[in-house]
């Protein structure tokens, strides 16, 4: 039972910037001062978004990316409409891991829309770090997918664009929308029944 219309899951190695991406998108901020902390288990956020003049409730799952929880990651991406697989362009290792996530995802959720996201664009732009993942490889790889974005959670660049594209794509997908509508009707029904049976508040 979920009150969200769309479910988006973030995948990728530890430290690539998944949590920062969600915090930038949902809370419009970036914590640069605090030392790195890995995500425990998975974190859930919801945000109201608009597409084609309609309101949608979008649920976002931020996963830990650590080996410890790998066996459990599946339960986070089951039923996901879209997945953002993150890598850090300055880390070849994070790119190599990305194939693993893609494979995993395909075995569990075949129809899930997949978006690649290169993170920490600001660091590339300022020359603080060197790109390790060649752009042409990324271009080739993302051809079969739904999109590729290069984002910065520090400046906010391309973050809203990424999530907006995902929601727009979902809304355009008739198959997805049919399920979303059905779920809404079902929830409405359940709510009505609950209110009849006992006071929920």
């Amino acid at each position, binding site marked *: *039972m979920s009150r969200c219309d769309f479910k988006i899951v973030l995948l990728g190695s530890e430290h690539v910037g998944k949590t920062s991406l969600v915090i930038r998108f*949902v809370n419009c901020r970036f914590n640069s001062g605090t030392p790195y902390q890995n995500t*425990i288990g998975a*974190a859930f956020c919801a945000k109201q978004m608009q597409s084609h003049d309609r309101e949608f409730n979008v649920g976002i799952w931020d996963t830990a990316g650590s*080996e410890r929880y790998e*066996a459990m990651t599946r339960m*986070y991406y089951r039923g996901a409409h879209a997945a953002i697989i993150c890598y850090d362009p300055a880390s070849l290792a994070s790119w190599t891991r990305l194939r693993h996530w893609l494979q995993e995802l395909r075995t569990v959720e075949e129809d899930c829309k997949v978006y690649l996201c290169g993170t920490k664009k600001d660091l590339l732009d300022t020359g603080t770090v060197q790109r390790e993942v060649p752009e042409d490889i990324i271009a080739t790889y993302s051809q079969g997918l739904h999109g590729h974005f290069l984002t910065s959670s520090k400046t906010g660049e391309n973050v809203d664009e990424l999530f907006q594209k995902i929601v727009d794509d979902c809304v355009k997908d008739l198959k997805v929308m049919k399920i979303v509508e059905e779920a809404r009707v079902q929830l409405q029904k359940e709510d009505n029944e609950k209110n009849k049976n006992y006071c929920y508040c």
Partner: protein
Amino acid sequence: MASTSKDHVAENEEALNEKVATDLEPGACLESILNPTDSFEEFASEISTSLEDRKTSLTIKSSTISEIQNEIGDSSKESSLRETKSSDNLQAKNESMSASASNSNLLEENEEESDEKDDYLQSPELVNKEKHVFILSSAGKPIYSRYGNEDKLAGLCGVIQALVSVVEEPNQDILRSINTKDCKAVFLVKGPLILVTVSKSNESETQLVLQLTYAFNQIVSVLTLTQLNRIFEQRRNYDLRRLLSGAERLIDHLFIFMEKDPAFLLGAVRCLPLPEKARENITQAITSTCNKIRDLVFAIMIAGNQLITLVRMKKYTLHPSDIHLLFNLVRSSESFKTAESWTPICLPKFDATGFLHGHVSYISEDCQACLLLLTVQRDAFFPLSQAKHTIAEKLRRSNCLVAINDALNRNKELPTTNPLKHIGIPEIRHFMYKCKSTAQLFTSDPISLDRLQDYRLRHKEGGDITVKKIEKLSDIDYVRNYRQFCNQIHCISTPAKLIFRSNSHDTVLAWVTNGFELYVTFDPLMEKDHAIRAVDRLLHWIKKEEQRIFIMNAPTF
């Protein structure tokens, strides 16, 4: 009856009983949310185990989690989850790692590198620390070092492993500790892990073993015992750090927490003092919201390492040490503050073999209380998320958030904020009280969040032994002082029931009865009679405030 040093005067317990109302057991109640097993008794048995016992003690007993699942008719799901970390899965991941580390080649390797390692052991990162902690696998692979970089400690770990096995193998004996003039090394072998602490603190061997056991439990809490055992059965030489990434921080914090908070010393849980009515409303908000959720095992609300309320499934209680691990998890994890989390959590005392699934979130932006909803159902996130929002709304409407914030901010109007002022016995400098039947504790000067944080920051920079001048003693300093008394009271061979020590620094009275443990620090050179009268008044005050200080019922869903 014990008397240790020259300035000790052992008091006759009967004399005390005459003067103090002995039936007074503040905080006692018939049913407890916590399992009041005394951790000292437990660790005493840990210390007295033989090698044979040790091998059998970690074999897995029945699982409480599957018991619950069977009861609610939902057994298939969880077991399949636990199986997912299957052998092939692990094997595949390790392909890149070279296998085989028999004892012999491990030692050889260490000899080669020994020059460089010796230097590292002398580096400022490692010398002059009050307490080191090393965790390694039984194959001698470094897993955790409290200070420095464990990668560079392979040599030391090899030596530790060799020491442990040299005592074990030919002699069928257990290496427990090594004592030098100013330093104790305490060893604990548990399952596939070896845990060692090298300490210059005044903590006793028992207390140090207790801390190592906590560290072991912290590891079990992120992996489960089943997984930990299986990993090393499959690959004796596995590098556990790959699975623990991020959990080192939990162990770091755990040691700081254990050194500072008397909750560990006494195996008890501190409750956030709240008006009786407020706590009742909070509990009520939880039970009324959650009583329809079948898979929920525990709902726990905490703030600043203090328990606000705990609602449980009938028949099940929590052990204080499991709650301490939850406190530690919440305190050390910033990520819970920004979003609702959903994470597997193993509570080693409750069931070391499997995970519970926890919905973890702070009540609201303006109230730093954290709610943990623990279930056996791994798909329960959304119902629990909804329950949390309903609970938060109820708490806000019934003004409970204000009550919690008042207590957390130590509002001056509350009698529990500065108990010594309210008790009105100026000679009492500090006290710490544990109600045994409910495993709850109260101290006169609860470590405020900021101070623990301060300590943490300072500690991160060093952990060095320093001779600092102390102006005003805090909870932390008094508790450090109580350690030796606590140790005598819990001594296995000759436990003391009452200790009265008066000298020119201070006067300390430590007293244990069937119902409670009490430690009080008075001004120097107090008269015994005078101290006893003060203790009587103190107990009456705690009794008067017990409803506020302690959780006096044991609510279930």
